[in-house]
């Protein structure tokens, strides 16, 4: 278990965070967090080992962009999870993956798997936003 990838979840909505974490745990990942704020997330990034991250863009009163920048700086792959459309992904991160909310568990898992396998640049089509 200890060498399974560690996934950081940043999500302000506790129910969603808990649900996503449960899905990932069930799939055999180690979940870091989840945390609802930028400060908590950056603390974890500093102190914990993180292989991959899932970021909700709009957090309570703030966005997760500072986290994304830090992650990019550290070379940690990440994906956005958002109810906004693709166009709401901030400009510097247009090439990043994102998972539309409400997310199907399979989509989350596929994205995480994809992020962990860098040579495989398979395109994962965004799912219906309806």
């Amino acid at each position: 278990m200890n060498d399974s990838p560690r996934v950081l979840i940043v999500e302000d909505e506790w129910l969603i965070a808990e649900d996503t974490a449960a899905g990932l745990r069930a799939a055999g990942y180690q979940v870091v967090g989840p945390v609802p704020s930028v400060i908590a997330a950056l603390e974890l990034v500093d102190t914990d080992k993180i292989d991959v991250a899932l970021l909700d863009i709009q957090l309570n009163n703030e966005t997760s962009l500072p986290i994304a920048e830090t992650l990019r700086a550290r070379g940690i792959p990440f994906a956005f999870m958002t109810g906004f459309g693709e166009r709401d992904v901030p400009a510097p991160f247009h090439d990043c993956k994102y998972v539309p909310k409400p997310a199907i568990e399979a989509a989350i898992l596929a994205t995480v798997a994809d992020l962990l396998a860098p040579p495989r640049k398979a395109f994962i089509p965004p799912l219906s936003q309806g």
Partner: protein
Amino acid sequence: MEGLFKGVTGQPGMAFVIITHLSPKRESLLHEVVRRYTAMPVAVIEDGMTVQPNHVYVMPQNVVLTIDRGVLHLRRPNGFSQERKPIDIFFSALAEDQGEYAVGVILSGGDSDGTLGAKAIKERGGLTVAQMSDGYGPRNPDMPQSAISSGLVDIAVPAEEIGAKLDAFARSFDTLNGLADDDSDETAELNKVRDEIYGILRSRSGHDFSGYKTRTFLRRIKRRMQIAQLQSISVYIKWLKEDPREVMNLLRDLLINVTNFFRDPEAFAVLENLIVPQLFEGKDASDAVRVWVPGCATGEEVFSIGMLLREHMEKLPAAPRVQIFATDIDEPALAVARAARYPEALLKGLSPERRERFFNNDGESYVLSNEIRELCIFSPHSVIRDPPFSRMDLVSCRNLLIYFGTGIQNRVIPVFHYALKPGGYLFLGTSESVGQHDDLFATVDKKHRIFQAREHASPHVRLPVLIGDGRSGAFPHESTGARKGAPGYPLRQAVEAQVLERFAPPHVLVNGDGDVVYYSARTGRYLEAPQGIPSRQLLTMARRGLRLDLRAALREATTTRRTVVRENLTVEEDGERVQPIKLTIEPLAERDNGEPLYLVLFEPSGPVQARSGMDGESRESDSTADLERELRDTRERLQSTIEEYETALEEVKSSNEELVSVNEEAQSTNEELEASKEEMQSLNEELNTINAELTSKIEELDHANSDLRNLFESTEIATIFLDRNLVVRTFTPAASSFFSLRPSDVGRPLTDLSSQLDYPQLKPHIDKVFETGETLNHHLARDTKGRFHMVHINPYRDKSNRIQGVVVTLVDVTVLAQAEEHQQVLISELNHRVKNMLAVIVSIANRTRESSETKEEFAQALIGRLHAMSRAYGLLSRERWKEASVKKLLHQEIEPFGIDRFELEGEEVKLGPQQGLSLSMAIHELATNAAKYGALSKPRGKVVVKWSSDDDVFTLAWREKDGPAVKEPASTGFGLTLLQGEIGYRLGGKVETAFLKDGLSVEILFPANHKEGS
């Protein structure tokens, strides 16, 4: 009118057209009136109507009516001219169209309308009828009177008889149809008849008509017969022989068309080329060319001469003044001439150039231009009775003399000679001549009857003194000339004659002017032939010593009409001896007609005496002889003075006459001026009204303009009006910033002006609007100031809906654009929120499933949680997602569990939306848990909820009482986990639970930062 139609029987075979002088503004009801008097159908004329026999047509008001090939035409008058001659116009058209089948009837009416029309009809061989006044009508006799006095009317009868005359006229066409036909088999007989009539005319009038066109001649005779209603030509000839008046009428008819413009063009050509230059010869601007046209009638001859003179004047550098005195005894005809207005049909003699040059067409008839009219002075004058004009250069008297008998002709010709300057010209009609007066006139052109006055002249044309008295229109008959002694004396007369011859004193008979009309025998002692031209003038023939007394006595006799006797006069005989005589002048007993005559008797009253012994003494004193000589000289001087005076007097008379004419002309001009002045006044009033109207319109316009200007200035909308060439017509102040427009740029093309707009397609867009005529809208990109603008290009249409330009409008749509952007933001926000919520619901469902053992439990828990969420959302929506009241929120969540089982304590606290949502979920979980396992599961159980808020922290305490005993569960249920998650994780707060023995106690804390966003 009534009388006329009552006289027409059922089917006359004619069509009637009624023309009236109606006010153009009044609706005519004439057709209704006429319908009452006739059985024939009556119609109001419409344009293009064909005339049918046995119909009556009534002219509508305010039109000009003409006829062409039996079709009636209406024209609207051009409205300027008040002075219309509708009857003249229709008559001339009718004459043209119908020829001898035309009949013109002139009834009551003012003015002289119809006179020229009647002339046109008569020229074409038609019949003219005028209403003659009787006891009842016409009400206004001017019009028929004018026509009658012009001599153009065939029949003048009262209205009641006109109908019958017309009937007879129409019928007579059938009976006389053969007469004027060329191929008549009675040609030989007709020739005989014609010769007979020529003979009658020649003997009666001295004019030979054998050169006249046969057909025309016969047509005229036929017309006379129709008028007289004679069935056979022999009856007519008989009548002609018996009635000299009919000869005159026929003559008149034969000569009717003699007064056209430039009648006898060849004669006028000679006048133009030969005579007119002579008239102007050697004259400069201070001189005058004087022309007299006696018998001018309706003025055509006058104006023809006027045109010739005017044309010649234009060739001269300094043209002398031209005066044309035009006279006639016929005043109505003069009125026509003065008006100088002719229907088109009467202008035939004119060349198109002259018509163009000298006439103005006022739409209905032709009016002579002023340059000719002002040369002419019209006045009533009789060539026979009134003193003539004098010092004329030309007298043109065409076709007047033919109406006079030879006697009057012989009187008139010397009058013309008197009137002319020596060397002046006389212009007569083709069939006229100066007769035996070769001594007065030399022939210039025999064929065209142009004569020149010889220089030596009889100095004694006696002029009548009757200046200013009434001038009657009728020509007098043969002058009272010398009476011829009747042959076959009875015995008594023979005796009387012998007694007279032997014993009566010598005497002569003179008229009022002193012209001798009869000499007795043995007058030689008192009279002698004077020097120079032979004369019948008594005063010039009287011997010396007699003249003065004779003159004085004659004057006394003519003025007092009493016998005047002068005793003890002396007549010189043989120079030395004198004869005393008694002179008696006695008016001759009045005779029926003619002028008064006077008998002048010379009675010797003593033996012949030697001159020296005249006073009864034979003193031969020198002084007496001297005195006598002196007296003689004085007498001679007196005599010559008297003669000079006479000459001067005659000149004064002529001048006076001329002045009278001029005065009358001036008066008529004055009247014209008065009429013009009235017209001007009414015009002026009209103009005033129009002006007032215009002023009020201008005021309205000013208002509208200032409204527009204010609108322009108040509107924020930039608008530019461009014409077809993109020239700026006007713009609103708001537009000036876009195109750097200044007021002075109005009139410049927009393309010349620098634009602040990034709008290169402006020109093509405008072109497109011109092409399609449709409005074009275009959004401009955001400008440098961050404003958005929308351009409307509308076509500018004028009244007739043609595109005359475009209106370019720039509307600032920044607010709209911002609202749109905002809307986009809201939509995506909503999208996000909905998706987020769905994600939450999915998570709740997942979590609930995991913590539920049965399907029912799952469904109940899930639905309860969803309802709690829904209620919270409902509350937040009502509060516009701004804030939520804790109290309301609690009420809402606990209500399904029975509100009486709760005790709520706390002040009014508002929470942020997210806090409200999370707290709702938490309360729901607590209440559900209490109902399942806690205080609410027992009937007496109660829950106390207390909350408070200080600066930073919101605190809520949930305390269950009187419930079943509780103990801390082995594993935390999902309810409490959710509570922990919502408050602890989501809101960054704290949840403390205590499982006390009388019930659960939960304390919730979280930062009271209700200014959070969503």
